């Protein structure tokens, strides 16, 4: 199961909880809301994940929190995440719809300070 991967289309959206904390992007609350992927239960089961997932594609990779979607209709293969620097690590020209590979991970979700250091090494 460790090497299991599934392909997902990630759609970004404006989340009220993430945007509530958007003026404090370095805070813990923002990280917990913005770095959160809402997934179909079947996709979570297929990967054997409970609370975190690693997303990667040709643009980069990022670890985010994973939550079971509250949508009444199933949406396997489709997942949702607030638009933020976390989703933008994976984005090509379109920041709204992103194709990724998702896999199980034991890694932690980075805060913004660590993320900036990793993404912009020349500036640190």
């Amino acid at each position: 199961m460790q090497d299991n991967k599934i392909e997902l289309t990630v759609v970004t959206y404006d989340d009220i909880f993430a945007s509530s904390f958007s003026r404090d992007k370095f805070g813990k609350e923002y990280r917990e809301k913005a770095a959160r992927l809402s997934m179909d239960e079947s996709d979570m089961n297929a990967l054997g994940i409970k609370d975190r997932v690693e997303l990667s594609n040709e643009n980069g990779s990022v670890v985010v929190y994973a939550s079971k979607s509250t949508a009444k209709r199933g949406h396997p293969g489709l997942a949702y995440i607030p638009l933020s620097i976390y989703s933008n690590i994976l984005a090509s020209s379109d920041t709204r719809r992103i194709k990724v590979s998702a896999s199980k991970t034991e890694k932690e979700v980075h805060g913004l300070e660590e993320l900036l250091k990793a993404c912009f090494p020349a500036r640190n």
Partner: protein
Amino acid sequence: MELICNGCSCLCDDVEIIGNEIAHACRKGAEFIRRYKTNRLASPTINGERVELDYAVKSAAEIIKKAKNPAVLGMGSSMLDAQRSAVELGEKIKATVDDFSTHAGVCRGILEREIKTCTLDEVKDNADVIVYWASDASNSHPRHLSRFTYLPRGKNRQKGFEERDAICIDVRESSTIEVCRQFHIIPPMKDGELMKCIMEALDGKVPKSSFLGSKEIIELSNKLKKAEYGVIFTGAGLDGSARVNELKEFMNKLNAVSNFHMIPMAEQCNTRGFSQVLHERKYERTSFKEALAKGKIDAALVLCFDPISEMPLSLSRSLSKIQTVVIDSYKTPMTELSKVAIPCAVNGIEAGGEVIRMDGVKFGINKIYEKDGSIEEKEIMKMLMDLI
């Protein structure tokens, strides 16, 4: 104390601060007011080192003057006077000016009277069919449905939501779908195709779609056709999926048989104002992202905005390699990566001014609290303009 919340472009004017309570505001608006002192940009910096304000402004002016291909970015949460200064500066230095709004095309169509529109007050009083297209208002503009559209009782809609149809068209089962009576889930990037199908149905043809049944589209078309007073609220998700020309064609077709208006769900409190300023000054908004990707930008002035959270990392990396000046109230990824960062008072909380709601109605906002040392964005812009 009564105030106007500038948390989004609803500009709710019934918010009150009663003791320690922020009454009537949504989660977003209340947090913005309650936590306005958190994560503030403490002092002017150059390469992360603290400097005096005058020196920071002088350095910023030098960067802008030396640039061959400058850009001016952001401004969606700036007051109108700061927006006017920024556009004036953009004209002077022939800059790429961009606010990253996904509603630029719709706003322009409305301002040039090519797209029929109305005010939110008219929606409240009259609308019987409300369409949220690629817009999750419950998240992006939390009080939109309860104050202006679906739920309130209006002059000619005394029964409130009982007399209204609210329809959602989206790629996902959003929070707004939970509230609306009807919804249509479509695959990403298929908005243009759905518009064509609806137009076919309006013409009496049987629409053929790859994702919705003909019956579902015909029923939707009939609902739109029978509207006495319809409104389409366009969301950010429509950008890139349907072009503004398609939207105009769709609205013209619809209005040949019905009575529909369009209002963009402008992202920030003064996104609509910025479109109006550009329109007044006849200055063209051009794509910063495209210019940056082509290596055509060598310096950027960023006003109360964090482009790092709005664009792909590859472009953010390019942005971090050029000379950047940021004026902002808060510490953001952009202020961390900028050459010069200058703090300003928080717009709408420590600094007042005029803003334009998503429907084009102008509001005057008074400051709520006295500013704590920092100066207003418009004053910093004036200092910059004097040096350039």
